[in-house]
């Protein structure tokens, strides 16, 4: 399975811990779901590890729609990670 590119976005304290708000990233082909992606990201470095630490409620959207851990990913998808929203 070949690798593919994703556009990643981070908001609120995930952005602060990771140290950037967005990035283009090349992901191994076996990373096929949102859950697998967040686990894979958590191993990329201390900032990511802190952002995706166990016990932290991290939510996500794929192509601007909220999505759960089993959501499938594909080339060119925009994936955003963020804490539970606090608008309103």
């Amino acid at each position, binding site marked *: 399975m070949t690798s593919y590119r994703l556009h990643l976005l981070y908001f609120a304290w995930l952005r602060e811990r990771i140290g950037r708000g967005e990035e283009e990233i090349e992901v191994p082909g076996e990373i096929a779901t949102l859950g697998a992606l967040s686990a894979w990201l958590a191993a990329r470095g201390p900032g990511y590890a802190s952002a995706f630490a166990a016990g932290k409620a991290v939510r996500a959207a794929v192509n*601007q729609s909220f999505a759960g851990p089993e959501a499938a990913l594909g080339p060119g998808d925009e994936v955003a990670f963020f804490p539970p929203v606090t608008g309103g």
Partner: protein
Amino acid sequence: MFRVSVQEAPFDIGAEFASLSAGRDDIGGIGCFVGTVRGEVDGRPLAAMTLEHYPAMTERALAAIAAEAEARWALLGGTVIHRFGRLAPGAPIVLVLAAARHREAALAATGFLIDWLKTKAPFWKKESFADGGEAWVEAKAADEAASARWGDEPPRCV
């Protein structure tokens, strides 16, 4: 039809009411909610509240919430305006208007809209305290419960 806006600028409540009802005589009632920045958190004075959002998604999320309100009640129109950026204590954050023939639908839709905005609109609030400290606001279980009573499924973590 709903008017939806994501903006840094303040909104003009009177103008929004006027624009929603201009030239119409089919509306019997308009429900409204305005959320504002409180000046302290558990007694700790606040200097400002900064709202971050997800620009590519936010307007679409607000429109989806408004569409859900229109599917649930026979509304004659409405307005959702949500601000972002740095806001001072006392500043308005969010405006919801819902117009209907009768007050029941207008008021129920108003409550629904603000409840779902709290859990489904991609905004994040950061508190900047007068003492220099900062903190991201944590999502409240009470807001999840208020949202859930309208029958949505709970958001899932990844």
